[in-house]
Protein backbone atom coordinates (compact mmCIF):
# COMPACT_ATOMS: atom_id res chain seq x y z
CA UNK A 1 0.00 0.00 0.00
CA UNK A 2 2.79 2.40 0.98
CA UNK A 3 4.57 1.51 -2.27
CA UNK A 4 1.48 2.54 -4.27
CA UNK A 5 0.79 5.69 -2.21
CA UNK A 6 4.29 7.07 -1.65
CA UNK A 7 6.19 5.40 -4.50
CA UNK A 8 3.97 5.20 -7.56
CA UNK A 9 1.72 8.03 -6.25
CA UNK A 10 4.58 10.50 -5.81
CA UNK A 11 6.07 9.55 -9.19
CA UNK A 12 2.75 10.13 -11.02
CA UNK A 13 2.17 13.34 -8.98
CA UNK A 14 5.44 14.71 -10.36
CA UNK A 15 4.65 13.52 -13.93
CA UNK A 16 1.22 15.23 -13.81
CA UNK A 17 2.76 18.30 -12.15
CA UNK A 18 5.32 18.65 -14.96
CA UNK A 19 2.43 18.46 -17.46
CA UNK A 20 0.48 21.16 -15.57
CA UNK A 21 3.24 23.61 -14.67
CA UNK A 22 5.12 22.94 -17.93
CA UNK A 23 2.09 24.03 -19.91
CA UNK A 24 1.56 26.99 -17.54
CA UNK A 25 5.11 28.14 -18.34
CA UNK A 26 4.47 27.47 -22.05
CA UNK A 27 1.43 29.79 -21.94
CA UNK A 28 3.24 32.55 -20.06
CA UNK A 29 6.74 32.38 -21.53
CA UNK A 30 5.89 31.31 -25.12
CA UNK A 31 2.26 31.54 -26.23
CA UNK A 32 1.29 34.97 -24.82
CA UNK A 33 4.36 36.75 -26.30
CA UNK A 34 3.94 34.74 -29.55
CA UNK A 35 0.29 35.80 -29.90
CA UNK A 36 1.25 39.44 -29.24
CA UNK A 37 3.82 39.23 -32.07
CA UNK A 38 1.39 37.34 -34.33
CA UNK A 39 -1.30 40.00 -33.79
CA UNK A 40 0.95 42.47 -35.64
CA UNK A 41 1.07 40.41 -38.85
CA UNK A 42 -2.22 38.51 -38.46
CA UNK A 43 -0.70 35.02 -38.18
CA UNK A 44 -2.07 33.98 -34.78
CA UNK A 45 -5.13 32.04 -35.99
CA UNK A 46 -3.30 28.71 -36.12
CA UNK A 47 -2.18 29.04 -32.51
CA UNK A 48 -5.66 29.87 -31.18
CA UNK A 49 -7.38 27.24 -33.38
CA UNK A 50 -5.00 24.26 -33.20
CA UNK A 51 -2.52 24.76 -30.35
CA UNK A 52 -4.33 26.55 -27.50
CA UNK A 53 -7.33 24.15 -27.16
CA UNK A 54 -5.03 21.10 -27.03
CA UNK A 55 -2.63 22.77 -24.59
CA UNK A 56 -5.58 23.83 -22.39
CA UNK A 57 -6.97 20.26 -22.36
CA UNK A 58 -3.73 18.75 -20.97
CA UNK A 59 -3.22 21.81 -18.74
CA UNK A 60 -6.55 21.60 -16.88
CA UNK A 61 -6.63 17.78 -16.60
CA UNK A 62 -2.97 17.79 -15.58
CA UNK A 63 -4.05 20.11 -12.75
CA UNK A 64 -6.75 17.63 -11.67
CA UNK A 65 -4.34 14.67 -11.72
CA UNK A 66 -1.67 16.63 -9.81
CA UNK A 67 -4.08 17.75 -7.07
CA UNK A 68 -5.75 14.32 -6.64
CA UNK A 69 -2.40 12.47 -6.54
CA UNK A 70 -1.10 15.08 -4.05
CA UNK A 71 -4.09 14.28 -1.82
CA UNK A 72 -3.35 10.54 -2.23
CA UNK A 73 0.25 11.08 -1.09
CA UNK A 74 -0.91 13.04 1.99
CA UNK A 75 -3.42 10.25 2.73
CA UNK A 76 -4.37 10.15 6.42
CA UNK A 77 -2.18 13.25 6.99
CA UNK A 78 -4.31 15.33 4.59
CA UNK A 79 -5.97 17.43 7.31
CA UNK A 80 -2.80 17.65 9.42
CA UNK A 81 -1.16 19.32 6.42
CA UNK A 82 -4.04 21.55 5.31
CA UNK A 83 -4.97 22.65 8.85
CA UNK A 84 -1.32 23.00 10.00
CA UNK A 85 -1.93 20.58 12.88
CA UNK A 86 1.66 19.27 13.13
CA UNK A 87 4.89 21.26 12.81
CA UNK A 88 6.44 18.69 10.45
CA UNK A 89 3.60 19.29 7.98
CA UNK A 90 3.94 23.10 7.86
CA UNK A 91 6.12 23.19 4.70
CA UNK A 92 3.99 20.71 2.72
CA UNK A 93 0.85 22.40 4.12
CA UNK A 94 1.93 25.71 2.55
CA UNK A 95 2.71 23.87 -0.71
CA UNK A 96 -0.67 22.13 -0.62
CA UNK A 97 -2.51 25.43 -0.08
CA UNK A 98 -0.60 27.12 -2.93
CA UNK A 99 -1.42 24.17 -5.22
CA UNK A 100 -5.09 24.33 -4.21
CA UNK A 101 -5.30 28.08 -4.95
CA UNK A 102 -3.69 27.44 -8.34
CA UNK A 103 -6.09 24.55 -9.03
CA UNK A 104 -9.00 26.90 -8.23
CA UNK A 105 -7.58 29.54 -10.61
CA UNK A 106 -7.35 26.98 -13.43
CA UNK A 107 -10.93 25.72 -13.21
CA UNK A 108 -12.77 28.84 -11.98
CA UNK A 109 -10.88 31.72 -13.62
CA UNK A 110 -8.68 30.50 -16.51
CA UNK A 111 -10.72 27.76 -18.23
CA UNK A 112 -14.20 29.45 -18.25
CA UNK A 113 -12.65 32.68 -19.56
CA UNK A 114 -10.51 30.86 -22.16
CA UNK A 115 -13.69 29.26 -23.51
CA UNK A 116 -15.03 32.79 -24.19
CA UNK A 117 -11.71 33.95 -25.73
CA UNK A 118 -11.44 30.91 -28.04
CA UNK A 119 -15.09 31.13 -29.09
CA UNK A 120 -16.16 27.85 -27.45
CA UNK A 121 -18.99 29.75 -25.74
CA UNK A 122 -20.83 32.85 -26.95
CA UNK A 123 -19.46 36.17 -25.70
CA UNK A 124 -19.64 39.81 -26.80
CA UNK A 125 -16.45 41.71 -27.69
CA UNK A 126 -16.66 43.48 -24.33
CA UNK A 127 -17.01 40.16 -22.47
CA UNK A 128 -14.09 38.72 -24.47
CA UNK A 129 -11.87 41.69 -23.59
CA UNK A 130 -12.71 41.27 -19.89
CA UNK A 131 -12.23 37.47 -20.11
CA UNK A 132 -8.81 38.03 -21.70
CA UNK A 133 -7.69 40.24 -18.79
CA UNK A 134 -9.04 37.91 -16.06
CA UNK A 135 -7.52 34.78 -17.66
CA UNK A 136 -4.21 36.58 -18.19
CA UNK A 137 -3.96 37.78 -14.58
CA UNK A 138 -5.03 34.38 -13.19
CA UNK A 139 -2.39 32.69 -15.36
CA UNK A 140 0.29 35.17 -14.26
CA UNK A 141 -0.78 34.72 -10.62
CA UNK A 142 -0.30 30.95 -11.01
CA UNK A 143 3.14 31.49 -12.56
CA UNK A 144 4.07 33.67 -9.56
CA UNK A 145 2.65 31.11 -7.07
CA UNK A 146 4.41 28.20 -8.82
CA UNK A 147 7.77 29.54 -7.56
CA UNK A 148 7.00 29.19 -3.80
CA UNK A 149 4.86 26.11 -4.63
CA UNK A 150 7.85 24.19 -6.01
CA UNK A 151 10.01 25.45 -3.12
CA UNK A 152 7.60 24.14 -0.47
CA UNK A 153 6.85 20.90 -2.36
CA UNK A 154 10.54 20.02 -2.11
CA UNK A 155 11.23 21.76 1.22
CA UNK A 156 10.38 18.85 3.55
CA UNK A 157 13.22 16.79 2.10
CA UNK A 158 15.33 19.83 1.32
CA UNK A 159 15.82 23.09 3.20
CA UNK A 160 13.52 22.15 6.14
CA UNK A 161 14.73 18.52 6.38
CA UNK A 162 16.44 18.99 9.75
CA UNK A 163 13.32 20.61 11.24
CA UNK A 164 11.06 17.93 9.73
CA UNK A 165 13.12 14.75 10.17
CA UNK A 166 15.38 15.72 13.10
Amino acid at each position, binding site marked *: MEFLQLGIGRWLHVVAGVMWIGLLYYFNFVQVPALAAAAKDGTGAGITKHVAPRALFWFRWGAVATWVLGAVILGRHFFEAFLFMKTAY*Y*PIGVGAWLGTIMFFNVWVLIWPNQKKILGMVQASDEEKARARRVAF*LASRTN*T*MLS*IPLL*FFMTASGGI*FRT*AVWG
Partner: protein
Amino acid sequence: MKNPLDSLWGTVISGLVLTLVLYYIVQFAMQ
Protein backbone atom coordinates in the same frame (compact mmCIF):
# COMPACT_ATOMS: atom_id res chain seq x y z
CA MET B 1 1.64 51.99 -10.19
CA LYS B 2 2.05 49.24 -12.77
CA ASN B 3 0.89 45.72 -11.96
CA PRO B 4 4.07 43.58 -11.65
CA LEU B 5 2.15 40.62 -13.15
CA ASP B 6 1.93 42.49 -16.48
CA SER B 7 5.61 41.69 -17.10
CA LEU B 8 7.29 38.30 -16.98
CA TRP B 9 10.19 39.57 -14.89
CA GLY B 10 7.75 41.27 -12.49
CA THR B 11 5.96 37.91 -12.11
CA VAL B 12 9.19 35.97 -11.46
CA ILE B 13 10.52 38.55 -8.98
CA SER B 14 7.14 38.61 -7.16
CA GLY B 15 7.31 34.81 -6.91
CA LEU B 16 10.84 34.94 -5.46
CA VAL B 17 9.85 37.62 -2.92
CA LEU B 18 6.77 35.60 -1.90
CA THR B 19 8.97 32.50 -1.50
CA LEU B 20 11.31 34.39 0.82
CA VAL B 21 8.44 35.83 2.91
CA LEU B 22 6.72 32.42 3.26
CA TYR B 23 10.06 30.74 4.07
CA TYR B 24 10.71 33.07 7.03
CA ILE B 25 7.10 32.69 8.27
CA VAL B 26 7.30 28.88 8.15
CA GLN B 27 10.78 28.81 9.67
CA PHE B 28 9.59 31.06 12.55
CA ALA B 29 6.43 28.95 13.06
CA MET B 30 8.45 25.70 13.17
CA GLN B 31 10.77 26.88 15.99
